[in-house]
């Protein structure tokens, strides 16, 4: 067969792109990062009849004009890869919002197939969609599907094949003539003519994007055209902008909307159906502050404290630790290594105090897995019910005080699970300023679930001190955020978020999401655990660690902590929870007073981000910012510890 064909799946978030992807690809998908970014792309190589195809699942995109990095990348795939077939997935009930993108894809002269997904939800709402009408008025193939149940996939495959063969394909390119209002029609025409080079997308689309001041497209045009021609193009754009009283973005989008409304009015019959009273009830529970704030507290109490804290880090960890590992796994491996070798060095590498199996593997499986697993489950649940964005809407005003918007609730809550993952999600925040503040706060004051779980189980044995810990962290969080908001230059964040309908999530979806997140986590974390064990082993062997540990003795002494804690702090840098778990071991041996535990817990929570998070900080925010953040945190966390220790001493706590 000739060259591999490319098939790209595009569409806005939450329309079932991934499930269409999974249905088409079977199970063989690989995840790769888009070059130079951390945005993940799902890829799969599939056969359709005798065509060898590469299937690409792109990040969510709402329109051809990107508002976020992810949207920009989705578009870049269309721009640079020029896929042979583009599958635009739209949710049936929101067809009117998706159609403008379909129109733009058609106008780009891409080979588009429109998939109208989640048909069942639409018909439940009393919507009747005439697929044939859509087909004829758009001039492209339209396939109705319910991708979660796999219905319509066979037809979609057939349509893809037809598109690849270019036989019976309804001719897409240029067949749909979008009527732009007279005010800009001429401008678009003359720009289209002025573009002399060949672009992968139609010149008409390029022209409309240029008129909407799209910086990336402008760069491409500048690179391609002769400088004389580019100057002319630039002049045309400026002229058009000056001439038009309304912003051009507006005029173009109005035209797109008008066309799609026209298509919808012919093809879609909708019964006006008011929301059920239960839906209204839950709507009120999550959006009216008097109900929503208690609900949020309940959610955090039961979801995070009870489920993740008590059940995950208490019951599950205890069981895995004392029954499974201490009872079976550790003795089993120790016995094996005793038989295998007499060399202490090797034994200590694998089954010693800091051994790969007895420490690295044990921490990962017995302590981290249950805590993080349950957290991801709770998070996926909150995400799938549509609750999280509502928390964002609730918190927006408060978050504005620390220079963030309600949107930042998502990475902040996720940070309670894994700060590293959350730092990557910070990307959804629209401005650089917000991303810096969020990264800073995640690095400093948001404990991850593994750390949180261990710290809670250590502190809860000492009664009420867990509240002192909590309030200290809250004060640090608010104070730092407030300060950053004052110090950093830039405009106030603005906030908008979609509130998807509240719904009872599908359990298998939640399990799937939890599984994917856990898989990612372990791929990232397990090697680090093992490396940490090896590094500690090397460090101890060569006495380098002793040097660092003794270097830590002094600052620890200043903040009132015994020097036993030095290696706990050192390990804390490898993994946040590693340090906390060390604290757990020390506490079990009864070596610490309540005051010492409390100060250590606070400083460990604030302390430097773990290696993985530091690496992501560098990757996402740049090395300069990452170092600045780390240096500040190092000094700041010890200062807080110092102050807290003094206060506790004055209060008479031992």
């Amino acid at each position: 067969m000739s060259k591999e064909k490319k098939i790209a799946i595009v569409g806005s978030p939450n329309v079932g792109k991934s499930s269409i992807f999974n249905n088409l690809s079977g199970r063989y998908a690989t995840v790769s990062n888009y070059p130079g970014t951390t945005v993940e792309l799902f890829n799969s190589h599939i056969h359709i009849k005798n065509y060898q195809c590469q299937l690409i699942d792109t990040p969510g995109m709402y329109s051809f004009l990107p508002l976020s990095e992810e949207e920009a990348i989705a578009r870049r795939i269309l721009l640079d890869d020029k896929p042979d077939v583009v599958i635009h997935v739209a949710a049936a009930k929101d067809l009117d919002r998706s159609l403008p993108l379909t129109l733009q894809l058609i106008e780009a002269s891409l080979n588009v197939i429109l998939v109208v997904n989640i048909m069942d939800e639409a018909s439940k709402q009393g919507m009747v969609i005439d697929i044939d009408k859509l087909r004829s008025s758009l001039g492209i193939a339209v396939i109705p599907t319910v991708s979660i149940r796999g219905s319509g996939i066979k037809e979609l495959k057939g349509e893809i094949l037809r598109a690849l063969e270019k036989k019976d394909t309804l001719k897409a390119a240029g067949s749909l003539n979008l009527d732009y209002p007279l005010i800009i029609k001429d401008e678009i025409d003359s720009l289209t003519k002025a573009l002399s080079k060949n672009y992968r997308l139609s010149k008409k689309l390029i022209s409309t994007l240029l008129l909407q001041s799209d910086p990336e497209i402008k760069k491409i045009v500048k690179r391609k055209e002769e400088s004389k021609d580019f100057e002319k193009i630039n002049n045309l754009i400026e002229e058009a902008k000056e001439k038009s009283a309304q912003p051009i973005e507006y005029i173009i989008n109005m035209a797109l909307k008008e066309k799609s409304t026209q298509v919808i009015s012919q093809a879609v019959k909708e019964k006006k159906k008011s929301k059920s009273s239960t839906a209204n009830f839950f709507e009120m529970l999550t959006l009216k502050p008097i109900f929503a704030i208690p609900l949020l507290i309940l959610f955090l109490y039961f979801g995070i404290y009870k489920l993740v804290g008590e059940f995950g880090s208490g019951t599950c960890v205890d069981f895995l630790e004392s029954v499974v590992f201490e009872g079976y796994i550790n003795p089993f491996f120790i016995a094996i290594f005793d038989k295998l070798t007499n060399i202490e060095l090797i034994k200590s590498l694998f089954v010693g105090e800091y051994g790969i199996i007895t420490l690295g593997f044990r921490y990962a499986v017995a302590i981290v897995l249950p805590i993080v697993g349950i957290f991801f489950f709770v998070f996926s649940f909150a995400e799938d019910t549509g609750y999280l964005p509502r928390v964002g809407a609730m918190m927006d005003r408060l978050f504005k005080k620390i220079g963030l918007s309600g949107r930042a609730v998502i990475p902040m809550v996720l940070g309670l699970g894994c700060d590293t993952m959350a730092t990557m999600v910070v990307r959804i925040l629209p401005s650089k300023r917000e991303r810096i503040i969020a990264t800073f706060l995640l690095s400093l004051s948001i404990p991850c679930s593994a750390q949180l779980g261990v710290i809670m189980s250590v502190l809860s044995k000492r009664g009420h001190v867990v509240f002192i810990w909590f309030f200290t962290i809250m004060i640090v969080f608010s104070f730092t955020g407030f300060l950053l908001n004052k110090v950093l230059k830039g405009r106030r964040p603005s906030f908008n978020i979609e509130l998807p309908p509240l719904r009872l999530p599908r359990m298998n979806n939640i399990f799937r999401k939890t599984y994917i997140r856990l898989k990612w986590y372990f791929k990232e974390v397990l090697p680090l655990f093992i490396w940490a064990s090896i590094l500690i082993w090397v460090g101890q062997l060569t006495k380098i660690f002793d040097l660092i540990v003794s270097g830590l003795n002094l600052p620890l002494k200043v903040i009132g902590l015994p020097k036993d804690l030095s290696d706990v702090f050192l390990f804390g840098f490898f993994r946040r929870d590693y340090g906390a778990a060390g604290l757990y071991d020390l506490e079990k041996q009864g070596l610490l007073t309540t005051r010492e535990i409390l100060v250590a817990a606070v400083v460990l929570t604030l302390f430097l981000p773990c290696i993985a998070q530091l690496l992501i900080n560098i990757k996402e925010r740049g090395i300069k910012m990452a170092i600045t953040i780390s240096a500040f945190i190092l000094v700041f966390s010890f200062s807080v510890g110092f102050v807290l220790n003094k206060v506790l001493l004055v209060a008479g706590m031992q």
Partner: protein
Amino acid sequence: MQKLTDAEEEILESLWIEIKENKKIPDLKIIKDEPALQGLISKNFLKLDSKDLLTSTGLKEAELCVRRHRLSERLLADLFALKDPLLHEAGCKFEHGLHHGLEDSVCTLLGHPKKCPHGLAIPAGECCRRFEKTPQRLIVSLKELDPGDIGKISYVNTHDSQILNRLISMGILPGSQIKLLHRFPSYVFEISNSSFAIDSDLAENIHVLLLNKKAPADKKHK
């Protein structure tokens, strides 16, 4: 009442601004041969030898001229997003068409604005005084709606393309129907089957034509 020429209206306008806002009595001797000036004198709007220059009818007419000018500017800026210098130029032409109560209609449509786009006060008209008594506005910002109110988006008052694109991505375009659901802590609204939450800065930019005011009994909190 005799009809004024455009030039006569312009003179009245400048005189009103000089006298009322700048508190100066200008010297008109040097232009006393201007036909427009003569016209005003003959219509009994202006007396060169009086110390106030304008007669009482002249003063009233002059105020209306200023009102029409500033209302035109407001209209052109809000609805057609015109900017200076085009705004001023077009405003100068447009104002002369706003007679026979048309200015009050424009004023009502815009929600009885108090200031022109340059920040100068727009003299209140008859409609504004009526409005003071019965608060009913046609076009208001989303921020001023009550939960349950339904409106049709008439325009978005921003030129920031970032904000504009963000609003467009939510489907906020002129002509769309929008229903406000909550005002606090965020503005939550429904637009073609989807709900969104936005902050007050964004809500302020969205101007809607009020279609369906919820019955007053339902909004005791106000």
